[in-house]
């Protein structure tokens, strides 16, 4: 019997407006019955020429723009930008600034992971997870408001330090929030990790091997859930991470469930880092400077630096030409590369499993499209 080559397969377009995609991107999948046989991600709906616009602005004016690269982890991106300019100026930060940046980074990491967990909750059909996670997240956003003055786009780091010192009683508030969160996270684990509704949909889906992950350039928790033991905070330390003792959770299974576990463990580790950094900050006197003066123009040269974003490896490459505007500023976004691996991730999965697999990438399209 004659059979058309494409009649038994069909393309489904998921996006740009689709309940599974947290952000604007399209995943076109070709299905054979229920099984995905081909996939093609498409991005670019939020492209705004960020790197080109930076060439039109002076250095301090790029900090608030760096916040808007990734809106759920804005602190790490403005930190990364300030770090690359500091490397270009070759200045060393005062201790207080380094520890304040660590505290702000980890607050940001916790709230970003909570936003991800809330999204996973709705993806896998449990609205309670969404409500509980966002309830806990509000405490960390309040900490952001106390420290930086804004909920999301914090605009806190400055070239050569941070904008302001801790407000009064910030240590107390921060420790209270962290202690409360560590208890609340166990409650959230009770309705996610101990629920077969969640675990059965994540176990055994989206499997990649260690070699595949390294070759495809997947970074962050998705990489550490596949057995690659690499965390820039530990292996290429920046700010004050070299002086803090913490563990890097690594799991070897390589499926969605191990990526999920890595992120949960990371939240506990972030609490531990905040606790240690706060203890250290108490020993540094308040009169210690939190910011140093830096020149306005950056000397000529090329500089590269990287940072551990909640989603993976963030890298910035700065080419300066001696003026007060960058000549070229390249951003390496972790999600940009992670989403390019969507095809190997969803191949062989069922259509209903695509949200569970792609949720583990933790999409943030602002940094992807730039």
């Amino acid at each position, binding site marked *: 019997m004659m059979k058309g080559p494409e009649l038994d397969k069909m393309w489904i377009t998921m996006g*740009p*407006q*689709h*309940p599974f995609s*947290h*952000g*604007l991107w399209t995943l076109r999948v070709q299905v054979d019955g229920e099984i995905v046989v081909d996939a093609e991600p498409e991005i*670019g*709906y*939020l*492209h*705004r*020429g960020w790197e*080109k*616009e930076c060439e*039109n602005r002076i250095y301090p004016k790029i900090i*608030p*723009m760096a916040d*808007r690269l990734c*809106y*759920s982890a804005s602190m790490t991106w403005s930190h990364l930008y300030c770090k690359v300019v500091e490397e270009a100026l070759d200045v060393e930060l005062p201790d207080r600034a380094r520890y304040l940046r660590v505290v702000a980074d980890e607050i940001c990491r916790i709230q970003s992971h909570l*936003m991800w967990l*809330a999204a996973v909750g709705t993806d896998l059909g449990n609205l309670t997870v*969404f*409500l509980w996670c*966002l*309830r806990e*997240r*509000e405490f960390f*956003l309040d900490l952001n408001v106390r420290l930086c003055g804004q*909920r*999301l*786009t914090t605009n806190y780091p400055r070239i050569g330090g941070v904008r302001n010192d801790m407000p009064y009683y910030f240590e107390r508030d921060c420790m209270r929030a962290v202690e409360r969160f560590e208890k609340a996270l166990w409650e959230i684990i009770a309705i996610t990790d101990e629920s077969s509704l969640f675990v059965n949909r994540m176990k055994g889906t989206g499997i990649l091997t260690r070699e595949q992950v390294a070759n495809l350039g997947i970074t962050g928790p998705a990489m550490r859930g596949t057995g690659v033991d690499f965390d820039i905070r530990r292996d290429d330390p920046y700010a004050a991470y070299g002086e803090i003792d913490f563990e890097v959770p690594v799991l070897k299974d390589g499926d969605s469930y191990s990526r999920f576990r890595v992120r949960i463990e990371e939240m506990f580790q972030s609490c531990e880092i905040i606790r240690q950094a706060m203890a250290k900050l108490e020993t540094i006197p308040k009169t210690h400077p939190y910011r140093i003066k830096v020149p306005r123009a950056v000397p000529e040269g090329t500089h590269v630096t990287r940072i551990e974003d909640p989603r993976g490896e963030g890298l910035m490459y700065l080419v300066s030409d001696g003026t007060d505007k960058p000549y070229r500023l390249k951003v390496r976004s972790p999600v940009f590369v992670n989403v390019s691996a969507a095809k190997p991730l969803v191949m062989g999965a069922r259509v209903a499993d695509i949200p569970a697999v792609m949720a583990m990438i933790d999409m943030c*399209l*602002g940094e992807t*499209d730039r």
Partner: protein
Amino acid sequence: MNLYPHAIGMSADEFMSWSSAMIDNMVSAGTKRTVNRLTGPVWAWAMRNSMHPLHFGLACCAIEMAAASAPKHDAERLGIIYRSSPRQTDVLLVNGWISKKLVPNLRRLYEQMPGPKWVVAMGECAISGGPWYDSYNIVQGMDQIMPVDVYIPGCPIKPDAMIDGFLLLQKKIDAYFKRGNFMED
């Protein structure tokens, strides 16, 4: 009023002439105005308390949109419930910058929504382009491609501000439905 006894067995042409004759009758007899006056406030009450925005997250403000429906702010007590299909919505909430690649998709979503529909521009980017004022790929403001009813400023806006903007939109919806829409369209 000319009522057909065999209304169930009507052909399409018969039905059209019957229904238009009935509407003409009601308009001329003042029935329509009376019904509008009676049902208008009920419609307005129902519609303003069940605003269903499209679940369409673009950028920073989408995170705050999620936070607004979360426990602390709880926008659902005002009837703001997000629907994923444009066919089930009446408010298009544009919460981010609009790139040129997105414009056709956005227009299509807007056209898929059943009327009467409202558009809310949320945040600086949707109002005027915001921080991307010199970009080569960004539409400088939502109102360049479709009519906007409510502008909510902020970058990103706070959930309180979003709820405030929706309260403004409630007034607009209320005014629209108060005059009644019995036997229209």
